[in-house]
Each structure stands twice: as structure tokens, then as C-alpha cells.
């Protein structure tokens, strides 16, 4: 005897269509993860501060048209995932991604900030990012005050990872001349 109890899962197309029906409010913080519409926790001030600091640090790249910064906006990752990472560095596109959400090929770097636990990001989202071929992901862990950088994506996961504690400097793979001191990111 099995209990065949299944939640209805949604494709990214359905998810976007659902948004046009107006059932989600402006305040709904949600993302589509493997077909599930997942609610995100409210953003605390430390979390917001870290995103603001990152934005400041990456602004020169934006000013040079080297990257399009996108804050907490959707990424069309696959047929059934459309997450909203805290920050994405995208390839600049003339329409500012107005005609469609960026796909994996448009992403240079994704950054997730975690105030309390990185479990969801590490266990659920990171494998999805690797599978989609996102070249680099950073997890900013405010609880342990360190930054984990993941690169070399394979369908099975990221092949390389490095941890940057306070007092160190990290560099996006796509922009090797941009040096970011972890102390400037971690609040």
C-alpha cells in the first residue's frame, strides 16, 4: 500500500502565467524551485545591508557596461525552476531583460546572502545552479562570517569550492581584475 499523495508541480511557463492572473500580491516573495512555489523569508536588515554593500562594490562593472546588476529578480534557470537570487551579474543586454528573464547562459555570477542558515541555498539551490551551468555562485554566510565560492559546474554539482573568511579577498571568475575584500561585504 502506497500513499500516492502528490502536490501539483508547476513549470516555469505556468508559474509566469500564474503571475499574470494576479493571484500573487506585490508582497509575495516567492520563487519556483523544482516545480514547487517556495516562499522566501522576509529580508532582515543585515541581509539587506550585505546586498547593498555588494551593489556598491559591483557598481563600477555596471558603469562600464561590463555587467548588468540584477537584484532579487527571477532567473529562468530551467523548465521548472525560476529562482530569485539576491544578486546576479548578467551579460548586458540592450533591452535590460525586459522581453524575457535571463537564462543560465546570461549569468556571469550569482550571489545568495544567508542571514541564519545556508542549508536551503547549499542543499537545494546550489545543485540546481550547477545543473543549469551557472559558472559561479557565491554564498554569503552572515552567521559564520564567511563567503563560499563555487565554480566549475557539472550536472552533479560544482567541482570547485573555496571558503573566504574575514580578512581575505575574492575575485569573480568573469572579472579577474575586480578585487573584493570580504570585510567590505560582511557586515
Amino acid at each position, binding site marked *: *500500500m502506497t*500513499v500516492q499523495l502528490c502536490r*501539483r508541480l508547476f513549470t516555469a511557463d505556468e508559474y509566469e502565467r500564474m503571475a499574470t492572473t494576479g493571484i500573487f500580491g506585490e508582497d*509575495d516573495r516567492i520563487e519556483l524551485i523544482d516545480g514547487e*512555489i517556495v516562499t522566501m*523569508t522576509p529580508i532582515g536588515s543585515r541581509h539587506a545591508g550585505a546586498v547593498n554593500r555588494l551593489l556598491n562594490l559591483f557598481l563600477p562593472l555596471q558603469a562600464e557596461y561590463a555587467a548588468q546588476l540584477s537584484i532579487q529578480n527571477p532567473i529562468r534557470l530551467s523548465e521548472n525552476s525560476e529562482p530569485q537570487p539576491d544578486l546576479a551579474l548578467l551579460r548586458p543586454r540592450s533591452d535590460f531583460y525586459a522581453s524575457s528573464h535571463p537564462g543560465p547562459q546570461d549569468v556571469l555570477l550569482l550571489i545568495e546572502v544567508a542571514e*541564519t*542558515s545556508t542549508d*536551503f541555498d547549499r542543499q*537545494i539551490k546550489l545543485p540546481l545552479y550547477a545543473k543549469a551551468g551557472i559558472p559561479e555562485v557565491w554564498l554569503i554566510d552572515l552567521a559564520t562570517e564567511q563567503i563560499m565560492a563555487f565554480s566549475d559546474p557539472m550536472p552533479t554539482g560544482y567541482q570547485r569550492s573555496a571558503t573566504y573568511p574575514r580578512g581575505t579577498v575574492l575575485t569573480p571568475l568573469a572579472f579577474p581584475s575586480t578585487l573584493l575584500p570580504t570585510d567590505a561585504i560582511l557586515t
Partner: protein
Amino acid sequence: MGTQTVQTRRFSRQDYERLVAEGFFHPEERLELVDGELIMMTPQGSRHATAVCLAEGALRSLFGAGFSVRVQLPIALDPDSEPEPDLAVVTGSPRDYRDAHPQTAVLIVEVTDTALPYDRERKARLYAKAGIPEYWIVNLLEGCLEIYRHPAIVSSPGAAYQSHSVASSSDTISPLAAPERSLAVADLLP
């Protein structure tokens, strides 16, 4: 984003009905909304379908004028639930529910050949919480009828209905809403 527990977005009945009205779902999808979760119902086997037909006939002859027997149709049970029980006996005639689904029933019946825990626990809690006075499970796995009556005022897991009895195929029973009539349990079993 820093979530510790993964929470899925709940749907209200209003959300669900809007999606249904907009033709969001495939016409052949069988879904029900249970406590804000959209649950896919399993395809029906022939024994299940037969039991639904038998129960439909039996209930129609038990409940006369003044009641309608609805088969696998929605009930607007609460703001976050719109299940589609196998059978629901409601007051009034079909046209009474032309503009809105019924919000309650005098009797709900589920036929179960696989998802016993779902019907016994989650569905029983749901129906009790909504004040459905009587709930039957036609249990095809054990060849019996489970009868749940008197919804608990405070619903806690496992205590959805205050009274629970099991009728075997040799028993006859009378529903609370038609106490003067009776039905052989054997007539419900395929």
C-alpha cells in the same frame, strides 16, 4: 536568501477558483485544494470507480427530495480548501449551487483503495474542522465501511471526529441525516 525551512506558497480557495476560471489547469487534471495545498488525485482503478457508482446509487435511494448527491465535485469547505470528495450529500437541488459550490454537506463519502492514511487522517481532520457531521470511508482494502461522526470542536491530530466505528459487509447502517432509512454495507462494496 536564508530560509531555514522550505515553505511552499499556499493557495487560497479564491486563488484556486480564479486559476480554474482562467482555464489554467488542463481540463482532465483531477486536483483538490486541501489546506492551501494543491493535491493531484490518483487515477481511478475499476474497483474504485465501481464503488463510487454503487455508493451513488445507494445514497440516491436513501436520501430523497430535499437532498442532492454530488459525485467527485468540489465543495468550498473553507478559505483554503476545496476538496472533491468521491460523494457528498448536500441539501437542496443541483441548481442551488449554480453560482457557488456548496460549503458544507450532510454526509461525505470517500472510496479508498490506496490512500487510506490520507483519507483517515488528513481528510478526516479537514472534514471535521469544517463541521461535516458525518464522514464515511468505503475501505476497499479491508472490505468495510468506516464511519466517523461528531466532529471534535477542538481539532487536534488524530482526534478529528469524536466517534469512529467500523461496519462490516453484513451490517446495515443509517446515516445521521436520514435516521429512518438504512443501507446494507454490502451494497457499497464492489
